[in-house]
């Protein structure tokens, strides 16, 4: 018995009405806007694209972790502190203790993912909101980071990583660029500008694709595939949608949630490692406020704060919007404080739009 009150839905509408719709519209709007106000400022030259591309990729890396965790029904507010902590761990182990850089990186990953598991374990065992548990870790990790750094070097910045990372078998995976030859060729044929003076004369102004950007794409593709195509992805949705109903049909909700906390910590460590390799140093105040920026990206991308609904592609577009707006206002020569005004505006706009779209899809009232 088909319900005569349900209208037939056209293919176009079906293709349009999806969780990412708000973020897609936002992305188009933001690009159109900056083409108009900053089109001739170099924002869309290869150099400019690299500039906002890298910033967006940074947001995307932590947004993918935050997105999957939020869909599983939890938050992690310790992401920013985790970034600072992971960086300082790598720097202390490699520069101060003289361990090989690859071992330092692996150690940082193990420690941070274990901390992520601890976060998850505490949330599951105590039944407290993850908001509170990870807020505690926001302070604990930041404090530990500063203390460790001052204890070993009497400073909050530890430099010298670049020197010890020379020729390391793992460090190249997080720093540096690939496709150098392609970009050199593009420079030679004149597609990309080349330096006309100095020691790098003849080299293209954009060396290649930074590894950071590659990490962002890899994590986005992995996250999207995991969430939408696999059994585990279905369990992520189920754990966030209604944990009790999911348990009744045999979904291992606790395991799913703890693994997502670990994945978020993994993403934070990727971010931290790339940053340390790029700057050649670690600083105790790195990653400040990143947890909120990640959550903003995810929410712009159409995820529901209470879990059970969202999209990795949406979160990635949220990161792109965030990066383009932040760097674009700089290119446009706008007052930098206006960035926050703009961001707040986009956030409200995106959330209102996403709420409407979600209601259309899920029949919420």
């Amino acid at each position: 018995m088909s319900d005569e009150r349900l209208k037939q839905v056209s293919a176009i509408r079906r293709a349009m009405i999806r969780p990412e719709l708000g973020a897609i519209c936002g992305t188009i709007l933001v690009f159109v806007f900056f083409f108009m106000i900053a089109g001739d400022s170099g924002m869309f030259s290869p150099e400019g694209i690299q500039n906002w591309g890298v910033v967006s990729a940074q947001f995307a890396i932590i947004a993918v972790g935050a997105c999957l965790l939020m869909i599983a029904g939890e938050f992690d507010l310790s992401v920013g502190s985790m970034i600072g902590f992971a960086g300082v761990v790598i720097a202390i182990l490699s520069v101060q203790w003289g361990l090989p850089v690859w071992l330092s990186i692996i150690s940082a990953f193990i420690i941070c993912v274990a901390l992520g598991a601890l976060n998850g374990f505490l949330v599951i065992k105590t039944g407290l909101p993850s908001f509170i548990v990870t807020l505690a870790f926001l302070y604990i990790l930041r404090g530990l980071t500063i203390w460790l750094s001052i204890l070993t070097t009497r400073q909050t910045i530890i430099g010298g990583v670049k020197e010890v990372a020379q020729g390391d078998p793992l460090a190249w995976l997080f720093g540096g660029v690939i496709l150098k030859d392609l970009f050199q060729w593009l420079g030679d044929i004149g597609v990309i500008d080349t330096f006309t003076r100095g020691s790098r004369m003849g080299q293209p102004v954009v060396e290649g694709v930074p590894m950071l950007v590659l990490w962002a794409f890899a994590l986005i593709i992995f996250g999207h595939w995991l969430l939408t195509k696999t059994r585990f992805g279905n369990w992520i949705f189920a754990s966030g949608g209604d944990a009790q109903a999911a348990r009744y049909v045999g979904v291992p909700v606790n395991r799913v949630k703890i693994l997502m906390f670990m994945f978020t910590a993994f993403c934070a460590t990727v971010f931290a490692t790339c940053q340390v390799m790029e700057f050649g140093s670690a600083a105790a105040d790195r990653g400040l406020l990143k947890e909120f920026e990640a959550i903003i990206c995810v929410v712009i991308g159409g995820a529901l704060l209470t879990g059970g609904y969202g999209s990795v592609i949406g979160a990635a577009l949220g990161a792109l919007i965030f990066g383009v707006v932040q760097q674009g206002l700089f290119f446009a020569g706008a007052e930098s404080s206006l960035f926050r005004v703009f961001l707040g505006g986009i956030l409200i706009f995106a959330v209102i739009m996403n709420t409407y779209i979600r209601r259309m899809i899920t029949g919420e009232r």
Partner: protein
Amino acid sequence: MSTPLIEMDNIEKHFGPVIALGGVSFSVMEGECHCLLGDNGAGKSTFIKTMSGVHKPTKGVMRISGQDVVFDSPRDAMEAGIATVYQDLAMIPLMSVTRNFWMGREPRKSFGPFKWIDFKHANQVTMDEMSSMGINLREPEQAVGTLSGGERQTVAIARAVYFGAKVLILDEPTSALGVRQTSNVLATIDRVRKAGIGVIFITHNVRHAMAVGDRFTVLNRGQTHGTAKRGEIKPEELQDLMAGGQELAELEGSLGGTI
């Protein structure tokens, strides 16, 4: 007479000093709909949870097809073919019908180390099972939130049946539904029963029970007041047993027999 699919023999369940169930006996035969009636607080929920493996009985024996069993978890009960459809926890509204239907048992395809859900197969089976229950979905990807309450119960029932339930426990499936949706769910119960599955239908609505029940057991303050076959008992008597007699009879008088 054949052996019951599930038999609960003199089950007691104590929570500290509280005796929630004080010796309840109950059984379901193949292809039978056994209605368990009781007012709020009668011990229905405790009894269902004991059958579905959430609680362990303090005293008494459970038998599945004549064999003594002890369930340590809901998972054990599920594996023994006992599926429970809870009133409000049946479905996750934000997820699609297919995702809900297969939740926890997603069919997979693999290539090397990669495994992914076989959505083509999953969608096809979902559509087929739903239409065999009399619900034509617009598309299997539509969210469960867009379905009516009765349809959600039906999806949950279809899911339990598809995954090989021998005994289906329905926890007040009709209590939150309108008239038409209720009749749909009752029709589904009838269809499931005809397929040879034993249905335990929990309700406090005598009329819904009378519509599909083969046998009726009334639970009151943790005790059973005996089991009656269809045709042996009148709705009014069931109503009286459920409420424990007197007061309701008086109330019924003053309301003109409308309850």
